[in-house]
Protein backbone atom coordinates (compact mmCIF):
# COMPACT_ATOMS: atom_id res chain seq x y z
CA UNK A 1 0.00 0.00 0.00
CA UNK A 2 1.28 3.45 -0.90
CA UNK A 3 2.20 6.21 1.51
CA UNK A 4 1.02 9.79 1.85
CA UNK A 5 3.54 12.62 1.60
CA UNK A 6 3.66 12.92 5.39
CA UNK A 7 4.17 9.18 5.84
CA UNK A 8 7.09 9.24 3.39
CA UNK A 9 8.86 11.99 5.31
CA UNK A 10 8.27 10.15 8.59
CA UNK A 11 9.52 6.84 7.17
CA UNK A 12 12.68 8.49 5.85
CA UNK A 13 13.42 10.04 9.25
CA UNK A 14 12.75 6.78 11.08
CA UNK A 15 15.10 4.91 8.73
CA UNK A 16 12.27 2.64 7.61
CA UNK A 17 11.34 1.63 4.08
CA UNK A 18 7.68 2.28 4.81
CA UNK A 19 5.29 3.16 7.61
CA UNK A 20 1.54 2.86 8.01
CA UNK A 21 -1.06 4.89 9.85
CA UNK A 22 -1.14 4.12 13.55
CA UNK A 23 2.43 2.82 13.71
CA UNK A 24 4.60 4.19 16.53
CA UNK A 25 8.02 5.31 15.32
CA UNK A 26 11.11 7.02 16.66
CA UNK A 27 12.33 9.64 14.19
CA UNK A 28 15.34 11.93 13.74
CA UNK A 29 14.69 15.65 13.96
CA UNK A 30 16.04 18.34 11.66
CA UNK A 31 15.01 21.20 13.93
CA UNK A 32 13.62 21.73 17.44
CA UNK A 33 11.92 25.06 18.17
CA UNK A 34 10.90 26.85 21.35
CA UNK A 35 9.77 30.31 22.41
CA UNK A 36 9.85 32.47 25.53
CA UNK A 37 6.79 30.74 27.01
CA UNK A 38 7.53 27.10 26.22
CA UNK A 39 11.35 27.01 26.26
CA UNK A 40 11.76 27.89 29.96
CA UNK A 41 9.61 24.87 30.89
CA UNK A 42 11.62 22.70 28.46
CA UNK A 43 14.91 23.97 29.86
CA UNK A 44 13.76 22.98 33.36
CA UNK A 45 13.03 19.45 32.09
CA UNK A 46 16.27 19.33 30.06
CA UNK A 47 18.21 20.10 33.23
CA UNK A 48 16.50 17.18 35.00
CA UNK A 49 17.79 14.75 32.34
CA UNK A 50 21.31 15.44 33.53
CA UNK A 51 22.49 15.83 29.94
CA UNK A 52 25.13 18.48 29.30
CA UNK A 53 24.74 19.60 25.72
CA UNK A 54 21.92 19.81 23.20
CA UNK A 55 22.16 17.18 20.45
CA UNK A 56 23.19 19.74 17.82
CA UNK A 57 23.56 23.44 18.48
CA UNK A 58 22.67 24.24 14.85
CA UNK A 59 19.39 22.35 15.05
CA UNK A 60 17.74 24.15 17.94
CA UNK A 61 15.94 27.45 17.33
CA UNK A 62 14.93 29.72 20.21
CA UNK A 63 12.76 32.75 19.54
CA UNK A 64 11.61 35.24 22.18
CA UNK A 65 8.46 36.48 20.46
CA UNK A 66 5.42 36.02 22.69
CA UNK A 67 5.77 38.53 25.53
CA UNK A 68 8.57 40.54 23.96
CA UNK A 69 9.97 43.19 24.05
CA UNK A 70 9.59 42.05 27.67
CA UNK A 71 6.16 43.15 28.80
CA UNK A 72 6.76 42.78 32.53
CA UNK A 73 9.25 41.50 35.06
CA UNK A 74 8.10 37.89 34.89
CA UNK A 75 8.35 37.92 31.09
CA UNK A 76 11.83 39.40 31.41
CA UNK A 77 12.83 36.54 33.71
CA UNK A 78 11.53 33.93 31.26
CA UNK A 79 13.45 35.54 28.38
CA UNK A 80 16.53 35.70 30.57
CA UNK A 81 16.27 31.98 31.27
CA UNK A 82 16.09 31.22 27.56
CA UNK A 83 18.87 33.69 26.71
CA UNK A 84 21.31 32.22 29.24
CA UNK A 85 20.54 28.72 28.03
CA UNK A 86 21.12 29.82 24.42
CA UNK A 87 24.45 31.35 25.40
CA UNK A 88 25.69 28.50 27.58
CA UNK A 89 24.67 25.94 24.94
CA UNK A 90 26.06 28.13 22.15
CA UNK A 91 22.80 27.82 20.21
CA UNK A 92 23.33 29.14 16.67
CA UNK A 93 19.73 30.06 16.03
CA UNK A 94 18.80 32.23 18.97
CA UNK A 95 17.21 35.46 17.76
CA UNK A 96 17.53 38.39 20.11
CA UNK A 97 15.27 41.45 19.92
CA UNK A 98 16.50 43.23 16.81
CA UNK A 99 16.76 39.95 14.89
CA UNK A 100 13.62 38.39 16.26
CA UNK A 101 10.28 37.95 14.55
CA UNK A 102 7.18 35.86 15.14
CA UNK A 103 8.71 32.38 15.05
CA UNK A 104 6.71 30.80 12.25
CA UNK A 105 7.31 33.73 9.93
CA UNK A 106 10.93 33.93 11.00
CA UNK A 107 12.13 30.34 10.56
CA UNK A 108 11.25 29.98 6.86
CA UNK A 109 12.59 33.46 6.16
CA UNK A 110 15.90 32.57 7.83
CA UNK A 111 16.06 29.39 5.77
CA UNK A 112 15.94 27.08 8.77
CA UNK A 113 13.33 24.76 7.28
CA UNK A 114 13.76 22.96 3.97
CA UNK A 115 11.52 20.67 1.94
CA UNK A 116 11.38 17.16 3.36
CA UNK A 117 12.55 18.23 6.83
CA UNK A 118 11.08 16.94 10.07
CA UNK A 119 10.55 19.72 12.59
CA UNK A 120 9.00 19.80 16.05
CA UNK A 121 8.30 22.99 17.93
CA UNK A 122 6.93 23.70 21.35
CA UNK A 123 4.28 25.86 19.76
CA UNK A 124 1.12 24.56 18.18
CA UNK A 125 1.51 26.59 14.98
CA UNK A 126 4.75 24.81 14.12
CA UNK A 127 2.60 23.12 11.47
CA UNK A 128 3.15 26.28 9.34
CA UNK A 129 6.21 24.80 7.61
CA UNK A 130 4.10 22.24 5.83
CA UNK A 131 3.83 24.99 3.21
CA UNK A 132 7.44 24.14 2.31
CA UNK A 133 6.77 20.43 1.92
CA UNK A 134 8.17 19.65 5.37
CA UNK A 135 6.58 17.60 8.15
CA UNK A 136 6.29 19.91 11.11
CA UNK A 137 4.14 19.67 14.17
CA UNK A 138 3.57 21.29 17.54
CA UNK A 139 4.53 19.48 20.74
CA UNK A 140 4.80 20.40 24.41
CA UNK A 141 7.80 21.48 26.41
CA UNK A 142 8.74 17.99 27.61
CA UNK A 143 8.89 16.74 24.03
CA UNK A 144 10.96 19.79 23.17
CA UNK A 145 13.35 18.98 26.01
CA UNK A 146 13.71 15.36 24.86
CA UNK A 147 14.17 16.59 21.29
CA UNK A 148 16.94 18.97 22.36
CA UNK A 149 18.62 16.23 24.37
CA UNK A 150 18.39 13.35 21.91
CA UNK A 151 17.56 14.79 18.46
CA UNK A 152 14.68 12.35 18.33
CA UNK A 153 10.96 12.23 19.00
CA UNK A 154 8.33 9.50 18.94
CA UNK A 155 5.36 9.81 16.65
CA UNK A 156 2.22 7.92 15.90
CA UNK A 157 2.04 7.89 12.10
CA UNK A 158 -1.09 9.80 11.09
CA UNK A 159 -3.64 8.92 8.45
CA UNK A 160 -4.64 11.77 6.15
CA UNK A 161 -7.44 13.77 4.64
CA UNK A 162 -6.75 14.82 1.06
CA UNK A 163 -7.90 18.27 -0.01
CA UNK A 164 -8.11 18.36 -3.77
CA UNK A 165 -7.89 22.02 -4.77
CA UNK A 166 -9.17 23.29 -8.09
CA UNK A 167 -9.90 26.74 -9.51
CA UNK A 168 -8.45 30.08 -8.56
CA UNK A 169 -9.37 32.32 -5.64
CA UNK A 170 -11.33 35.43 -6.62
CA UNK A 171 -10.55 39.05 -5.79
CA UNK A 172 -10.07 39.74 -2.07
CA UNK A 173 -9.91 36.01 -1.32
CA UNK A 174 -6.64 34.71 0.13
CA UNK A 175 -5.17 31.79 2.04
CA UNK A 176 -7.00 32.88 5.20
CA UNK A 177 -10.38 32.61 3.55
CA UNK A 178 -9.48 29.18 2.17
CA UNK A 179 -8.50 27.77 5.55
CA UNK A 180 -11.40 29.40 7.43
CA UNK A 181 -13.73 27.96 4.79
CA UNK A 182 -12.23 24.50 5.35
CA UNK A 183 -12.38 24.71 9.16
CA UNK A 184 -15.97 25.93 8.92
CA UNK A 185 -16.70 22.85 6.83
CA UNK A 186 -14.93 20.14 8.87
CA UNK A 187 -14.91 21.69 12.37
CA UNK A 188 -12.22 22.28 14.99
CA UNK A 189 -11.71 18.54 15.41
CA UNK A 190 -12.42 17.65 11.78
CA UNK A 191 -8.85 16.47 11.22
CA UNK A 192 -8.05 15.24 14.74
CA UNK A 193 -4.84 13.14 14.75
CA UNK A 194 -4.74 13.35 10.93
CA UNK A 195 -2.63 15.07 8.28
CA UNK A 196 -4.25 17.59 5.98
CA UNK A 197 -2.63 17.04 2.59
CA UNK A 198 -3.35 19.68 -0.02
CA UNK A 199 -2.95 18.88 -3.70
CA UNK A 200 -4.48 19.43 -7.11
CA UNK A 201 -4.24 22.05 -9.85
CA UNK A 202 -5.50 24.80 -7.52
CA UNK A 203 -2.28 24.72 -5.48
CA UNK A 204 -0.43 26.61 -8.23
CA UNK A 205 -2.72 29.62 -7.79
CA UNK A 206 -1.80 29.94 -4.11
CA UNK A 207 1.24 32.07 -3.26
CA UNK A 208 3.78 30.84 -0.72
CA UNK A 209 2.32 33.32 1.77
CA UNK A 210 -1.15 31.86 1.16
CA UNK A 211 0.22 28.37 1.76
CA UNK A 212 1.92 29.41 5.01
CA UNK A 213 -1.40 30.82 6.22
CA UNK A 214 -3.28 27.65 5.31
CA UNK A 215 -0.74 25.24 6.82
CA UNK A 216 -0.51 27.49 9.91
CA UNK A 217 -4.17 26.90 10.77
CA UNK A 218 -4.20 23.13 10.19
CA UNK A 219 -4.00 22.82 13.99
CA UNK A 220 -7.26 24.78 14.22
CA UNK A 221 -8.91 21.75 12.61
CA UNK A 222 -7.16 19.50 15.15
CA UNK A 223 -4.67 18.22 12.55
CA UNK A 224 -1.23 16.91 13.36
CA UNK A 225 0.14 18.68 10.31
CA UNK A 226 -0.85 20.35 7.06
CA UNK A 227 1.31 19.84 4.01
CA UNK A 228 1.66 21.11 0.45
CA UNK A 229 3.42 19.46 -2.47
CA UNK A 230 6.70 21.01 -3.55
CA UNK A 231 6.28 22.87 -6.85
CA UNK A 232 8.22 25.52 -8.77
CA UNK A 233 7.06 28.26 -6.38
CA UNK A 234 8.29 26.29 -3.37
CA UNK A 235 11.62 25.62 -5.03
CA UNK A 236 12.02 29.30 -5.93
CA UNK A 237 11.25 30.29 -2.32
CA UNK A 238 13.70 27.74 -0.94
CA UNK A 239 16.39 28.80 -3.39
CA UNK A 240 16.09 32.36 -2.14
CA UNK A 241 16.04 31.51 1.57
CA UNK A 242 17.35 28.07 2.42
CA UNK A 243 20.88 26.79 1.80
CA UNK A 244 19.82 23.14 2.26
CA UNK A 245 19.20 20.92 -0.73
CA UNK A 246 15.41 20.37 -0.96
CA UNK A 247 14.28 16.76 -0.45
CA UNK A 248 11.12 16.35 -2.44
CA UNK A 249 8.63 13.69 -1.36
CA UNK A 250 5.45 12.98 -3.27
CA UNK A 251 2.45 11.01 -2.16
CA UNK A 252 2.19 7.61 -3.87
CA UNK A 253 -0.58 7.34 -6.42
CA UNK A 254 -2.09 4.50 -4.37
CA UNK A 255 -1.71 6.28 -1.02
CA UNK A 256 -4.69 5.69 1.23
CA UNK A 257 -6.68 8.65 2.56
CA UNK A 258 -9.45 8.62 5.16
CA UNK A 259 -11.39 10.86 2.82
CA UNK A 260 -10.97 13.31 -0.04
CA UNK A 261 -12.55 16.74 0.07
CA UNK A 262 -12.97 18.73 -3.13
CA UNK A 263 -12.39 22.47 -2.79
CA UNK A 264 -13.13 24.84 -5.66
CA UNK A 265 -11.03 27.87 -4.74
CA UNK A 266 -13.06 29.99 -7.15
CA UNK A 267 -16.23 29.49 -5.10
CA UNK A 268 -14.77 30.68 -1.79
CA UNK A 269 -15.99 34.03 -0.49
CA UNK A 270 -14.17 36.23 2.07
CA UNK A 271 -14.85 34.36 5.31
CA UNK A 272 -15.02 35.43 8.96
CA UNK A 273 -14.90 33.18 12.04
CA UNK A 274 -17.25 34.43 14.74
CA UNK A 275 -16.58 33.98 18.47
CA UNK A 276 -15.57 31.70 20.08
CA UNK A 277 -14.32 29.00 17.73
CA UNK A 278 -12.53 29.11 14.37
CA UNK A 279 -15.25 26.81 12.99
CA UNK A 280 -18.01 29.40 13.51
CA UNK A 281 -17.57 30.79 10.04
CA UNK A 282 -19.81 33.01 7.94
CA UNK A 283 -19.16 34.36 4.49
CA UNK A 284 -18.82 38.11 4.37
CA UNK A 285 -22.22 38.46 2.69
CA UNK A 286 -23.91 36.99 5.79
CA UNK A 287 -22.12 38.72 8.66
CA UNK A 288 -24.74 41.40 9.27
CA UNK A 289 -23.98 44.49 11.32
CA UNK A 290 -21.10 43.87 13.74
CA UNK A 291 -19.62 47.02 15.24
CA UNK A 292 -15.98 46.69 16.26
CA UNK A 293 -13.50 48.45 18.54
CA UNK A 294 -10.16 47.14 17.33
CA UNK A 295 -8.43 45.69 14.30
CA UNK A 296 -5.22 43.66 14.49
CA UNK A 297 -3.25 42.92 11.34
CA UNK A 298 -0.30 40.66 12.04
CA UNK A 299 0.73 37.29 13.62
CA UNK A 300 2.26 34.08 12.26
CA UNK A 301 -0.92 33.63 10.24
CA UNK A 302 -1.12 36.95 8.40
CA UNK A 303 1.77 39.25 9.28
CA UNK A 304 3.78 38.69 6.10
CA UNK A 305 4.63 41.28 3.47
CA UNK A 306 1.84 40.28 1.09
CA UNK A 307 -0.65 40.62 3.96
CA UNK A 308 0.58 44.12 4.74
CA UNK A 309 0.41 45.05 1.05
CA UNK A 310 -3.20 43.87 0.82
CA UNK A 311 -4.13 45.87 3.93
CA UNK A 312 -2.29 49.00 2.72
CA UNK A 313 -3.92 48.78 -0.67
CA UNK A 314 -7.35 48.94 0.97
CA UNK A 315 -6.47 51.53 3.62
CA UNK A 316 -4.78 53.89 1.12
CA UNK A 317 -6.54 57.26 1.04
CA UNK A 318 -8.99 56.21 3.79
CA UNK A 319 -9.18 56.81 7.52
CA UNK A 320 -9.72 54.31 10.29
CA UNK A 321 -13.18 54.83 11.85
CA UNK A 322 -12.90 57.20 14.83
CA UNK A 323 -13.97 54.51 17.34
CA UNK A 324 -11.52 51.90 16.07
CA UNK A 325 -7.93 51.21 17.16
CA UNK A 326 -6.04 49.68 14.24
CA UNK A 327 -2.80 47.89 15.12
CA UNK A 328 -0.46 46.65 12.39
CA UNK A 329 2.30 44.22 13.40
CA UNK A 330 4.78 43.13 10.73
CA UNK A 331 5.84 39.60 11.68
CA UNK A 332 9.63 39.97 11.33
CA UNK A 333 12.29 42.67 11.16
CA UNK A 334 12.82 41.92 7.48
CA UNK A 335 9.11 42.30 6.73
CA UNK A 336 9.06 45.47 8.84
CA UNK A 337 11.90 47.03 6.84
CA UNK A 338 10.42 45.93 3.54
CA UNK A 339 7.05 47.46 4.46
CA UNK A 340 8.78 50.66 5.49
CA UNK A 341 10.82 50.80 2.28
CA UNK A 342 7.72 50.23 0.18
CA UNK A 343 5.99 53.17 1.85
CA UNK A 344 3.30 51.04 3.51
CA UNK A 345 3.86 52.65 6.92
CA UNK A 346 2.98 56.07 5.52
CA UNK A 347 -0.31 54.65 4.31
CA UNK A 348 -1.04 53.01 7.69
CA UNK A 349 -0.11 56.08 9.69
CA UNK A 350 -1.98 58.50 7.41
CA UNK A 351 -5.04 56.29 7.86
CA UNK A 352 -4.72 56.52 11.65
CA UNK A 353 -3.32 53.03 12.32
CA UNK A 354 -0.27 52.27 14.43
CA UNK A 355 2.67 50.04 13.52
CA UNK A 356 4.28 47.86 16.19
CA UNK A 357 7.62 46.11 16.36
CA UNK A 358 7.33 42.37 15.63
CA UNK A 359 5.68 40.47 18.51
CA UNK A 360 2.90 37.95 19.12
CA UNK A 361 1.49 40.60 21.45
CA UNK A 362 -2.30 40.78 21.24
CA UNK A 363 -2.71 37.50 19.33
CA UNK A 364 -2.62 35.55 22.60
CA UNK A 365 -3.80 38.37 24.82
CA UNK A 366 -0.24 39.08 25.90
CA UNK A 367 0.19 42.82 25.44
CA UNK A 368 -0.01 45.58 22.79
CA UNK A 369 -3.76 45.63 22.31
CA UNK A 370 -5.68 43.74 24.99
CA UNK A 371 -9.47 43.93 24.84
CA UNK A 372 -11.75 45.08 27.66
CA UNK A 373 -15.15 43.60 28.60
CA UNK A 374 -17.61 43.70 25.72
CA UNK A 375 -15.03 44.89 23.18
CA UNK A 376 -14.84 43.33 19.74
CA UNK A 377 -11.82 42.90 17.49
CA UNK A 378 -11.41 41.82 13.90
CA UNK A 379 -8.08 40.08 13.82
CA UNK A 380 -5.95 38.36 11.18
CA UNK A 381 -4.72 35.93 13.84
CA UNK A 382 -5.79 32.29 14.20
CA UNK A 383 -7.75 31.78 17.43
CA UNK A 384 -10.88 33.37 18.80
CA UNK A 385 -11.36 31.33 21.96
CA UNK A 386 -12.99 32.88 25.03
CA UNK A 387 -10.59 35.46 26.48
CA UNK A 388 -7.95 34.85 23.81
CA UNK A 389 -7.27 38.55 23.31
CA UNK A 390 -8.19 39.87 26.74
CA UNK A 391 -11.31 40.01 28.89
CA UNK A 392 -13.49 36.87 28.98
CA UNK A 393 -16.39 38.97 27.72
CA UNK A 394 -14.46 40.33 24.74
CA UNK A 395 -14.89 38.91 21.25
CA UNK A 396 -12.49 38.09 18.42
CA UNK A 397 -13.56 37.75 14.79
CA UNK A 398 -10.95 36.06 12.60
CA UNK A 399 -10.55 37.35 9.07
CA UNK A 400 -8.14 38.07 6.23
CA UNK A 401 -6.03 41.25 6.04
CA UNK A 402 -8.41 42.53 3.34
CA UNK A 403 -11.50 42.14 5.53
CA UNK A 404 -9.62 43.48 8.56
CA UNK A 405 -8.52 46.62 6.69
CA UNK A 406 -11.98 47.21 5.27
CA UNK A 407 -13.49 46.77 8.74
CA UNK A 408 -11.02 49.27 10.21
CA UNK A 409 -12.33 51.89 7.78
CA UNK A 410 -16.04 51.34 8.31
CA UNK A 411 -15.90 50.39 11.99
CA UNK A 412 -18.08 47.36 11.21
CA UNK A 413 -17.04 43.97 9.81
CA UNK A 414 -16.89 44.90 6.14
CA UNK A 415 -16.55 43.46 2.66
CA UNK A 416 -13.37 44.86 1.07
CA UNK A 417 -15.30 45.01 -2.22
CA UNK A 418 -17.48 47.74 -0.75
CA UNK A 419 -14.59 50.13 -0.02
CA UNK A 420 -14.43 52.76 -2.74
CA UNK A 421 -11.18 53.75 -4.37
Amino acid at each position, binding site marked *: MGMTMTQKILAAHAGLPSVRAGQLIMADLDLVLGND*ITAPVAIGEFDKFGCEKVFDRDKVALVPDHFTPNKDIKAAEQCKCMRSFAHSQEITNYFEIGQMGVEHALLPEKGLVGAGDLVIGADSHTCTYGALGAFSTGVGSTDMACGMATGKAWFKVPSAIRFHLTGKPGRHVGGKDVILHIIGMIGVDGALYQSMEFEGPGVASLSMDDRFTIANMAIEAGAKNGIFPVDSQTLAYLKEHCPKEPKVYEADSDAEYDRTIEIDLGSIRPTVAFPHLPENTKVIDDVGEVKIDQVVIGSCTNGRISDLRVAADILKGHSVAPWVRCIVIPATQKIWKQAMDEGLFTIFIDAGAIVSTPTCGPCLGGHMGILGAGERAVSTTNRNFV*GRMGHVESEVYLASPAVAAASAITGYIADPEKIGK
Partner: protein
Amino acid sequence: MMQAKGKVFKYGDNVDTDVIIPARYLNTSVHAELAKHCMEDIDSTFVQNVQDGDIIVAQKNFGCGSSREHAPIAIKASGVSCVIAKTFARIFYRNAINIGLPILECPQACDAISQGDVVSVDFSTGTIVDETTGQRFQAEPFPPFMQELIAAGGLAGYIAKQNEKK
Protein backbone atom coordinates in the same frame (compact mmCIF):
# COMPACT_ATOMS: atom_id res chain seq x y z
CA MET B 1 -1.11 5.99 41.94
CA MET B 2 -2.83 3.45 39.76
CA GLN B 3 -6.24 4.43 41.05
CA ALA B 4 -8.15 7.66 41.37
CA LYS B 5 -11.34 8.63 43.14
CA GLY B 6 -12.99 12.00 43.39
CA LYS B 7 -15.94 14.17 42.56
CA VAL B 8 -16.57 15.24 39.03
CA PHE B 9 -16.32 18.62 37.37
CA LYS B 10 -18.13 18.32 34.07
CA TYR B 11 -17.52 20.40 30.92
CA GLY B 12 -18.60 20.35 27.27
CA ASP B 13 -16.95 20.09 23.83
CA ASN B 14 -13.73 21.80 22.76
CA VAL B 15 -12.47 22.95 26.17
CA ASP B 16 -9.44 24.85 24.88
CA THR B 17 -6.07 25.55 26.43
CA ASP B 18 -6.86 29.27 26.65
CA VAL B 19 -9.66 28.61 29.13
CA ILE B 20 -7.70 25.90 30.96
CA ILE B 21 -4.94 28.41 31.61
CA PRO B 22 -5.28 31.86 30.01
CA ALA B 23 -2.16 33.22 28.28
CA ARG B 24 -2.16 36.24 30.60
CA TYR B 25 -0.82 33.94 33.32
CA LEU B 26 1.86 32.33 31.19
CA ASN B 27 4.55 34.76 32.27
CA THR B 28 5.37 32.14 34.88
CA SER B 29 5.83 28.40 34.86
CA VAL B 30 5.57 27.92 38.64
CA HIS B 31 3.08 25.07 39.03
CA ALA B 32 1.26 26.44 42.09
CA GLU B 33 0.84 29.83 40.39
CA LEU B 34 -0.66 28.18 37.31
CA ALA B 35 -3.01 26.10 39.47
CA LYS B 36 -4.45 29.29 40.98
CA HIS B 37 -5.95 30.21 37.60
CA CYS B 38 -6.91 26.78 36.31
CA MET B 39 -10.20 26.76 34.33
CA GLU B 40 -10.76 30.39 35.40
CA ASP B 41 -12.31 31.60 32.13
CA ILE B 42 -14.79 28.74 31.86
CA ASP B 43 -15.54 28.08 35.54
CA SER B 44 -14.56 30.84 37.92
CA THR B 45 -15.36 28.74 41.01
CA PHE B 46 -13.29 25.70 40.00
CA VAL B 47 -10.22 26.73 41.94
CA GLN B 48 -12.16 27.30 45.19
CA ASN B 49 -14.04 24.02 44.89
CA VAL B 50 -11.53 21.52 43.54
CA GLN B 51 -10.06 19.04 46.01
CA ASP B 52 -7.21 16.59 45.70
CA GLY B 53 -8.26 13.59 43.69
CA ASP B 54 -11.16 15.23 41.84
CA ILE B 55 -11.85 14.27 38.25
CA ILE B 56 -12.63 16.33 35.15
CA VAL B 57 -15.11 14.82 32.69
CA ALA B 58 -15.61 16.54 29.34
CA GLN B 59 -16.92 15.87 25.85
CA LYS B 60 -14.92 15.89 22.60
CA ASN B 61 -11.60 17.56 21.66
CA PHE B 62 -10.52 18.42 25.21
CA GLY B 63 -7.41 20.59 25.33
CA CYS B 64 -7.59 21.97 21.81
CA GLY B 65 -5.57 25.01 20.92
CA SER B 66 -2.08 25.86 21.99
CA SER B 67 0.79 23.52 22.77
CA ARG B 68 1.23 25.03 26.23
CA GLU B 69 2.24 22.27 28.62
CA HIS B 70 1.09 24.73 31.26
CA ALA B 71 -2.46 23.48 30.60
CA PRO B 72 -2.08 19.89 31.86
CA ILE B 73 0.38 21.18 34.48
CA ALA B 74 -2.26 23.58 35.83
CA ILE B 75 -4.84 20.79 35.97
CA LYS B 76 -2.48 18.38 37.69
CA ALA B 77 -1.21 21.02 40.11
CA SER B 78 -4.77 21.93 41.07
CA GLY B 79 -5.15 18.40 42.46
CA VAL B 80 -7.10 16.76 39.64
CA SER B 81 -6.28 13.06 39.47
CA CYS B 82 -7.60 12.26 36.03
CA VAL B 83 -9.35 13.72 32.98
CA ILE B 84 -11.93 11.64 31.11
CA ALA B 85 -13.14 12.88 27.71
CA LYS B 86 -14.62 11.53 24.50
CA THR B 87 -11.51 12.64 22.62
CA PHE B 88 -8.47 14.78 23.36
CA ALA B 89 -6.67 17.25 21.12
CA ARG B 90 -3.43 15.56 20.13
CA ILE B 91 -0.85 17.95 21.60
CA PHE B 92 -2.72 18.03 24.90
CA TYR B 93 -2.86 14.22 24.90
CA ARG B 94 0.90 13.99 24.42
CA ASN B 95 1.63 16.67 26.99
CA ALA B 96 -0.63 15.13 29.62
CA ILE B 97 1.11 11.77 29.31
CA ASN B 98 4.53 13.43 29.27
CA ILE B 99 3.88 15.30 32.52
CA GLY B 100 2.14 12.35 34.18
CA LEU B 101 -1.50 13.48 34.19
CA PRO B 102 -3.65 10.37 33.59
CA ILE B 103 -6.23 10.84 30.83
CA LEU B 104 -8.79 8.40 29.48
CA GLU B 105 -11.01 8.38 26.41
CA CYS B 106 -14.43 6.91 27.13
CA PRO B 107 -17.46 8.34 25.28
CA GLN B 108 -20.06 6.29 27.23
CA ALA B 109 -18.73 7.51 30.58
CA CYS B 110 -18.72 11.11 29.34
CA ASP B 111 -22.38 10.89 28.35
CA ALA B 112 -23.53 9.19 31.56
CA ILE B 113 -21.53 10.83 34.35
CA SER B 114 -22.98 14.03 35.85
CA GLN B 115 -21.46 17.05 37.52
CA GLY B 116 -20.77 16.29 41.19
CA ASP B 117 -20.91 12.48 40.89
CA VAL B 118 -18.19 10.58 42.73
CA VAL B 119 -16.20 8.50 40.27
CA SER B 120 -13.39 5.99 40.70
CA VAL B 121 -10.93 4.92 38.05
CA ASP B 122 -8.54 1.98 37.88
CA PHE B 123 -5.82 2.82 35.36
CA SER B 124 -4.42 -0.68 35.08
CA THR B 125 -7.76 -2.15 34.01
CA GLY B 126 -9.29 0.98 32.47
CA THR B 127 -12.44 0.54 34.57
CA ILE B 128 -14.41 3.67 35.44
CA VAL B 129 -17.14 3.42 38.10
CA ASP B 130 -19.70 6.13 38.80
CA GLU B 131 -20.10 5.46 42.55
CA THR B 132 -23.08 7.80 42.71
CA THR B 133 -25.15 5.89 40.13
CA GLY B 134 -23.38 2.54 40.26
CA GLN B 135 -22.71 2.52 36.49
CA ARG B 136 -19.49 0.96 35.17
CA PHE B 137 -17.61 1.88 32.02
CA GLN B 138 -14.63 0.42 30.26
CA ALA B 139 -11.83 2.54 28.77
CA GLU B 140 -8.62 1.35 27.14
CA PRO B 141 -6.21 0.57 30.01
CA PHE B 142 -2.76 2.15 30.03
CA PRO B 143 0.00 -0.07 28.66
CA PRO B 144 2.59 -0.93 31.35
CA PHE B 145 5.22 1.57 30.15
CA MET B 146 2.70 4.37 30.41
CA GLN B 147 1.72 3.27 33.94
CA GLU B 148 5.38 3.42 34.86
CA LEU B 149 5.74 6.79 33.20
CA ILE B 150 2.78 8.22 35.10
CA ALA B 151 4.04 6.71 38.35
CA ALA B 152 7.39 8.40 37.73
CA GLY B 153 5.59 11.74 37.48
CA GLY B 154 6.12 12.07 33.74
CA LEU B 155 8.58 11.53 30.93
CA ALA B 156 11.47 13.37 32.58
CA GLY B 157 11.22 11.27 35.73
CA TYR B 158 10.76 8.13 33.65
CA ILE B 159 13.91 8.85 31.61
CA ALA B 160 15.84 9.53 34.81
CA LYS B 161 14.58 6.20 36.30
CA GLN B 162 15.50 4.31 33.13
CA ASN B 163 18.99 5.81 33.33
CA GLU B 164 19.31 4.63 36.96
CA LYS B 165 18.36 1.08 35.97
CA LYS B 166 21.19 0.93 33.39
